[in-house]
């Protein structure tokens, strides 16, 4: 039991110890609890504070809750809106993707931020690889590309900025770009659209090339043109200078020839020994030959220049031809040849054509015939080949029994300066121009020329020409004869500066028996004209002080004189002749002056105006007095005023309607009515003493109207008839009143 006691005691000690520890612990905890209590109290305070704060927060939250509700609505709206925006943007996106023009967006750093499909296909690089890379890397000129988008940033846009995309084929593009901004207006980047202009470039290139070609071609053409113009000018100059040369030569040669031949003729008329006469004849013949040559050359020049004109005047064929053949009589007699004329009597008396040219043709042919014939005869035949209502065709033939032409040469003889054999001119003389001229004269008139020839037997030259028929009377011929009496009184004014020519003209005119005054220039001539009257002026063209053209112009325009003026000219090229006509000269004579020609021209011109003058006077008188003549009526009515008045009033009643019908039917081309009206008018002309001319005119109208031919001439005739009838009516009215008022 001790032990147990001990153990117990130990235990007890242990417990005591324990208990003390526990007490101590308790005390510690109490302290701690105290602290905790303090802490709790503080925390309570804090808690109270927080509760108050929470209360406020609570209120706040409640408010916020409300706000949240509102926002939810807005949010759903926004969501809807954002959906539609999304749709729109998808739509725009699809548009952008569909565009065939490459589009890029670039940020300010120059990196690509977006692209469309076209960009991918053109660069051949995938979208992923493109976005975020440097824009300018894709161009042949990066610097320029960079500058391009920098320009967009700087200016806000760029238009048609040319660049070349560095793809497999180097596509040329034009860039159009503009910046895009956020809401605040900050620049976010640029959008650029590239337009593929390969096609345009190609076209442009082609265009440029074409342009260059065109320019080249134009250049070539212009060159060619200027060359052509040059040659034309040269050719024209050549023609002109040729003409000028001919003109000058003819002038230079003709002037001295004028004096030589003229004075030879004058001397020939004086007392001479046989020898002297022989020598002078030789001089004259040589001179004549020279003049013929010059005339031939000038004629050819005229033909060459296309200036040969053919007149259409009425002339008497038979007289014309026999007069011309007359010229050869002496020569033919000298050579002891026979001249046979065969003239077809069926040829109408008067024909219309160019007698001068016809002369020239026959003259050339006959002079050839005479020249080459030493024995036998020369036959000139004129035959009517055919005729219709308007024209006749006549064949002229000149046959000789001369040396003939070898067949091989026949084709050549019509060429300039060609003779059948080169020796011909040595033997027979001549220039070889004659036949060329003949051909040139026949063919333009619509004729043809033929040759038949046999060596040693002779040749026949024949040509055909057609002439118009006419009812007109031919001029000249008969007139010269009947005029002889009065021509002695013709007063001629010669205007000529060269003393030699003055003397020559003086001699010639004295020979003709004309009165003449000679002055040395146009100025003196005009002074002379104002003091004295002349019948005709012979006017040289080139004179000091006032030349022939100026003088003529003055006479025609200032003096208002119609005096005939014949130009005396050594210069007979076409140019001058045209000028002569244009200033109002009536005719011209080439120097050296041919006596006969001068004589006939003076007579022709002096006579003609005389006739015209009379005509004019008559007409004026008629107009001044009356177109009617009541003699017939007075005679018929035995001056019975009542009957005369009856007649006149009937005429006055009947005529105006007839005129109306006449005019109307002409207008309507109703030839039958025209015929009738005019027909009915005819008897009244003679009753009222109206000139027979008008009656004939009316008959002509009637004839034209019935045959319906030459209707062109009708209007003029009708107008004249109308005028005369109107005038007659007027006069008859006066006459009527006079008779009425005359006391019986």
């Amino acid at each position, binding site marked *: 039991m001790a032990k147990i006691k001990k153990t117990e005691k130990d235990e007890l000690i242990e417990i005591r110890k324990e208990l003390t520890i526990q007490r101590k612990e308790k005390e510690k905890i109490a302290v701690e609890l105290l602290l905790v209590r303090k802490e709790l109290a503080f925390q309570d305070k804090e808690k109270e504070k927080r509760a108050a704060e929470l209360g406020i927060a609570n209120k706040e939250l409640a408010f916020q809750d409300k706000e949240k509700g509102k926002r939810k609505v807005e949010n759903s709206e926004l969501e809807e809106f954002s959906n539609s925006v999304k749709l729109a943007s998808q739509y725009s996106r699809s548009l952008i993707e569909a565009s065939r023009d490459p589009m890029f967006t670039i940020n300010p750093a120059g990196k690509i931020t977006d692209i469309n499909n076209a960009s991918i296909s053109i660069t051949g690089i995938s979208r992923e690889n493109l976005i975020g890379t440097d824009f300018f890397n894709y161009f042949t000129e990066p610097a320029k590309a960079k500058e391009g988008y920098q320009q967009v940033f700087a200016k806000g846009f760029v238009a048609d900025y040319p660049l070349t995309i560095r793809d497999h084929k180097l596509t040329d593009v034009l860039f159009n770009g503009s910046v895009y901004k956020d809401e605040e207006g900050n620049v976010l980047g640029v959008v650029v659209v590239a337009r593929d202009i390969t096609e345009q470039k190609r076209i442009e290139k082609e265009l440029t090339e074409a342009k260059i070609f065109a320019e080249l071609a134009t250049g070539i053409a212009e060159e060619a043109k200027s060359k052509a113009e040059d040659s034309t000018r040269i050719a024209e100059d050549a023609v002109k200078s040729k003409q000028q040369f001919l003109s000058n030569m003819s002038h230079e040669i003709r002037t001295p020839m004028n004096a030589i031949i003229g004075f030879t003729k004058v001397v020939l008329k004086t007392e001479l020994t046989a020898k002297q006469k022989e020598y002078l004849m030789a001089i004259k013949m040589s001179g004549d030959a020279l003049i013929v040559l010059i005339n031939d050359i000038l004629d050819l020049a005229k033909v060459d220049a296309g200036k040969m004109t053919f007149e259409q005047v009425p002339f008497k064929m038979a007289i014309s031809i026999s007069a011309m053949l007359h010229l050869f009589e002496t020569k033919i007699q000298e050579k002891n040849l026979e001249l046979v004329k065969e003239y077809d009597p069926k040829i109408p008396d008067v024909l219309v054509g160019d007698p001068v040219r016809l002369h020239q043709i026959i003259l050339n042919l006959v002079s050839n015939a005479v020249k080459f014939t030493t024995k036998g005869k020369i036959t000139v035949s004129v035959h009517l080949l055919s005729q219709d209502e308007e024209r006749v065709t006549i064949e002229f033939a000149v046959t000789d029994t001369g040396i003939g032409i070898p067949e091989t040469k026949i084709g050549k003889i019509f060429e300039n300066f060609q003779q059948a054999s080169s020796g011909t001119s040595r033997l027979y003389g001549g220039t070889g121009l004659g036949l060329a001229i003949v051909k040139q004269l026949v063919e333009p008139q619509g004729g043809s020329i033929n040759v038949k020839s046999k060596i040693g037997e002779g040749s026949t030259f024949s040509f055909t020409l057609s002439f118009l028929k006419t009812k007109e009377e031919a001029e000249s011929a008969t007139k010269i004869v009947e005029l002889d009496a009065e021509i002695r009184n013709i007063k001629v004014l010669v205007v000529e500066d060269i003393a030699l020519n003055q003397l020559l003209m003086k001699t010639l005119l004295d020979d003709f028996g004309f009165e003449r005054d000679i002055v040395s220039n146009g100025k003196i001539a005009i002074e002379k004209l104002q003091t004295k009257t002349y019948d005709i002026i012979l006017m040289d063209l080139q004179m000091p002080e006032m030349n022939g053209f100026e003088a003529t112009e003055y006479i025609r325009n200032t003096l208002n004189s119609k005096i005939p003026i014949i130009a005396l000219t050594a210069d007979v090229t076409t140019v001058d002749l045209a000028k002569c006509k244009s200033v109002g000269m009536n005719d011209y004579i080439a120097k050296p002056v041919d006596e006969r020609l001068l004589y006939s021209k003076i007579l022709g011109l002096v006579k003609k105006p005389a006739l015209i003058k009379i005509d004019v006077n008559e007409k004026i008188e008629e107009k001044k007095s009356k177109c009617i003549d009541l003699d*017939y009526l007075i005679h*018929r009515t035995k001056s019975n005023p009542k009957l005369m008045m009856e*007649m006149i009033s009937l005429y006055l009643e009947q005529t105006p309607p007839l005129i109306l*019908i006449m005019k109307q039917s002409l207008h309507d081309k109703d030839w039958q009515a025209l015929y009738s009206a005019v*027909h*009915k008018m005819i*008897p009244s002309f003679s009753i009222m003493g109206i000139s027979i001319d008008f009656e004939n005119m009316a008959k002509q109208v009637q004839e034209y109207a019935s045959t319906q031919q030459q209707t062109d001439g009708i209007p003029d005739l009708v107008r004249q008839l109308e005028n005369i009838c109107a005038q007659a009516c007027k006069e008859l009215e006066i006459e009527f009143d006079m008779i009425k008022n005359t006391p019986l």
Partner: protein
Amino acid sequence: MKNEKIKLFLVDDDAVFLKSLEIEFLQHADFAIETFATGELCLQNISHNPDVIILDYFLDGIDKTAMNGMQTLDKIKVFNPDISVIMLSSQDKIEVAVNCMHHRAFDYVVKSETAFTRLQKIITTIFQYKKMEKELNWYMERM
């Protein structure tokens, strides 16, 4: 017979010419004259029994519907073939003249200054002719 005036018809559409003829006939001889502008008028008055009719050939010139000279001539001849008709025309054409003669006109005269004188002579001839005819008839009857 001679105390009876010779009755003359003048037919022409040309009033002036008609009048001038009338004046001439009145002055140069003692005729009883009636003038007509158309063939129709002439025929209407044919019962007046003219001895001679001077008839224009070209009566339908202005009035196209008018009877022409030849038609008038034929009708006159139907009425009384003994009436002598002298045709008058301003055209100097053989065919016209011959044609007139075929239609039994007594003569054909071209209008001119001398027309009147010729007409006068023709009229004289007509009466000589008629006289001869009468005489011939008279003798024939006696035979």
